């Protein structure tokens, strides 16, 4: 019998791996991908609780999270393209000032 708690544990692991990826990698693209992992963990939580409570609100909010994730990916990758044009790098620690 798989309960909501199983899904919460899975979501915890996914979230932690995502946060570790955001902290230890210096490649901007990998950091963005780790962020997607974190958002996916949030979605698993939403939908697990939607099942647990027998309410659809969690699924509706998962739709919103997916939308925001798509917007975030578009913006983040736009920043990467602009960054590469400006500095010829995607390594976060080489980008230290905001002015070009």
């Amino acid at each position, binding site marked *: *019998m798989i*309960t909501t*708690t*199983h899904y919460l*544990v*899975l979501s*915890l*692991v*996914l979230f*932690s*791996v995502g946060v*570790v*990826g955001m*902290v*230890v*990698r*210096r*490649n901007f*693209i*990998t950091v*963005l*991908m*780790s962020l*997607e*992992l974190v958002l*996916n963990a949030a*979605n*698993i939580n939403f*939908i697990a609780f*939607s*099942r*647990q409570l*027998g*309410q*659809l*609100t969690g*699924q*509706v909010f*998962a*739709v*919103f999270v*997916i*939308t*925001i*994730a*798509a*917007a975030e*990916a*578009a*913006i983040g*990758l*736009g920043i*990467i*393209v*602009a960054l*590469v*044009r400006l500095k010829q*790098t*995607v*390594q976060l620690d080489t980008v230290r000032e905001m002015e070009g």
Partner: protein
Amino acid sequence: MDFIVTNFGAIVFYFLAAITVAGAVGVVAFRSPVRAALSLLTTFLAVAGLFVLLHAEFIAAVQVFIYAGGVMVLFLFVIMLVSSRMEPDESQYMRRLAPIAGAVGVLLAVLVGIGAWAATRAPAADVAALTAVAGQQAGNTEAVGWNLYRDYLLPFEVVSIVLLVAMIGAIVMGRKEKEGQA
């Protein structure tokens, strides 16, 4: 054989969960961004499978369309676009973080242990409401649609404005700046 039939949901869950976690670890561990991206794709598809297990068929389809389709293609495009400027050695940096990583790993193991213990005493869920429209049985997509457009119409419109702003922002940032233009 009986074991497989009675525990089919659990077997599928553990299978998909293992793929999800393995893909996530791959995203963080692979040096090559293309491999990391394909690993992320594996995670997305496995999570879509988990959504089906959770009676969220519509979200599972959206996950495949938006994540595995749209977002993934965007990532791969940008990786190919900038792949010539990739990746000096990160091993030095990783070594300095090893003690913190160990502490976080222990904490995570404790949390997973607590969760596994709590899972043995959690109540069962009631899923009939996830496919009900106005008290009658319907499909999951129809039920989500009713909820989305009746109870959450304003958030829906706000999200569409966020998407519009994100699109304009991405175009402005991705655009080549011409001579004489700021």
